[in-house]
């Protein structure tokens, strides 16, 4: 059919071409549908994850109602479950992580875009990104065997001496005597135990630093050089350029990057599971042990049956919804920058 030479009948040729066109159109359409089906799988994954956890968690939601969200009891022996302790633990560790990770990431991004000499930028930023490549289980091990003992030996005694109501050295500090409530945040039943909410937050901070700093570095680089040079020409110092030009120009995207880090910190399992302690006592103290949603699931799902399994699914659903919202905000804020870049 393809061998249409000059002496072929024009009519036949046209027919062959038409049938080939039809075939191509059909193939194109099938091909497009197949690709689209694959793309829809992405959608299916997200919907499926939400639906399956909600479906298997329905027993817990039905049994405890709204009380599930506000009850601080998580007691498998009495089959009583409330999400408050893991939820507060998840949010608390993530906020601690942000408090430490955001300034450090900002500093790193500032260093890499404005201060470091050219030859240094490549290696340093690759090194920081290497931190993101380390598997989270390694962070967990390091946290348990190395960092938690370090906290117990060096950080915790100092914090307790200065901020707790019954410090190891016996002298209640001026701050604790005069500022109400502060001692509540730094009390600890086991002063020589390194695991706890603060330790988990710090390990998370190290984990999310590379994510936040690489977003910040990227968005700082989108600031037009002309803008920065104008400010320098007017006599601004490096800090003034960064604080008054770069930061306002990239504010939305910077917040997006921070939310991205927050999303990571909320959903992280392995780095937290070893160093949080996995206890279910409701306490405001940062030095006490606690639990997060992900660590609770990792620890208990294997042996859970019936209502406990359902309760674990229910908190997984809560985790998924919260991280989804956080990541959505992050992406929306980052997207606005992408459209700005085009102009």
């Amino acid at each position: 059919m393809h061998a249409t030479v000059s002496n072929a009948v024009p009519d036949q040729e046209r027919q062959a071409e038409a049938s080939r066109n039809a075939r191509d159109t059909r193939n194109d359409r099938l091909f497009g549908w197949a690709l689209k089906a694959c793309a829809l799988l992405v959608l299916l994954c997200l919907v499926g994850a939400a639906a399956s956890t909600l479906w298997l968690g329905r027993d817990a939601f039905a049994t405890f109602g709204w009380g599930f969200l506000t009850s601080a009891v998580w007691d498998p022996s009495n089959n009583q479950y409330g999400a408050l302790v893991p939820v507060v633990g998840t949010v608390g560790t993530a906020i601690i992580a942000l408090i430490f990770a955001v300034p450090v990431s900002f500093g790193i991004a500032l260093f890499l875009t404005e201060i470091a000499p050219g030859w240094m930028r490549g290696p340093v930023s690759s090194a920081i990104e290497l931190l993101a490549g380390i598997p989270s289980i390694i962070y967990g091990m390091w946290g348990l065997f190395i960092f938690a003992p370090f906290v117990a030996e060096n950080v915790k005694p100092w914090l307790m001496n200065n901020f707790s109501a019954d410090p190891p050295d016996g002298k209640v500090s001026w701050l604790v005597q005069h500022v109400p409530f502060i001692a509540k945040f730094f009390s600890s039943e086991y002063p020589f135990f390194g695991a706890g909410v603060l330790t988990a937050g710090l390990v998370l901070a190290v984990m999310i630093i590379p994510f936040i700093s690489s977003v910040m570095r990227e968005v700082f680089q989108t600031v037009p050089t002309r803008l920065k040079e104008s400010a320098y020409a007017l006599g601004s110092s490096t800090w003034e350029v960064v604080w008054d030009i770069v930061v306002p120009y990239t504010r939305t995207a910077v917040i997006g990057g921070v939310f991205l880090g927050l999303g990571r910190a909320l959903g992280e399992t392995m780095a937290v599971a070893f160093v949080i302690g996995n206890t279910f006592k409701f306490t405001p103290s940062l030095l006490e042990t606690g639990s997060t949603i992900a660590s609770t699931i990792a620890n208990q799902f294997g042996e859970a049956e019936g209502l406990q399994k359902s309760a674990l699914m229910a908190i997984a659903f809560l985790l998924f919804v919260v991280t989804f919202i956080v990541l959505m905000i992050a992406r929306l804020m980052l997207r606005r920058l992408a459209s700005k870049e085009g102009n």
Partner: protein
Amino acid sequence: MSASLYTRRRIKNILAMAFSIVATCIGLLFLAWILWETLSQGLAGLKPQLFTKITAYREEGGLANAMVGSLILNVLGILIATPIGVAAGTWLAEYSRRSKLGPMIRFLNDILLSAPSIVLGLFVYTVIVLPSKWLTNGDVTFSGIAGGIALALIALPVIVRTTDEMLRLVPGTLREAALSLGVPQWKLTMQILVRSARSGIVTGILLALARISGETAPLLFTAFGNNFMTFNPIDKMPSLPQVIYEYTKDPSPDINTLAWAGAFVLTMFVLALSLIARLAFSRSKVSHD
């Protein structure tokens, strides 16, 4: 007065610079600390039986079955995620221009990229592990296949995103040239666009592999673990991260040493993969210019 203002501004600037340098040092310090511990503790536990004996022998054993299991699970995950991911990425880059669905899926894919892996593991538990229970008269059937699918869900958004980005880097003139010769679009996509973006797509697959080989949480309730060597994907299957997790929780220091050795092997593998991916990517960039 103006001199003091000048001094104040200078001090502020110096403080900010100092803070930024200190922050960078903190980041690098933690990297060095973690790598150093993994290296020194891991090398202490590194011995030949690590690669030849299985975890059933505990202290006298090694991690051979876990490494084989990890390899099988990772290969399964990549084999499932690659065709779907490349197809989805291609659709986003080439077919979704006029539809509203395209930007939405691209957006959701970015969310899936950092969604908590433990919830994705529970999703696979619900749709694969639990239903297969009905097929086998009530036993909960954790399996290598379920583990592979869980890893595929984590690899998928990475592959989708890199494919999408790489295809959008292919110059439009290439498309127009092919279309003007009468090449149908599926042929154009398969034989010209995907091929010219190949090295970038391979980079994405390598990055996805690096990402899933360190994943632990979703494997706990899908592949579950196994103290014996198994090549059967319908069987419970051990994996290196899962064994490291169990061995880290173990009270015995000898077992902990094995966990460190496993951690060393895993970290080296993952870092080597991301290095290779990066090298491949930088080469592809050069050839595109």
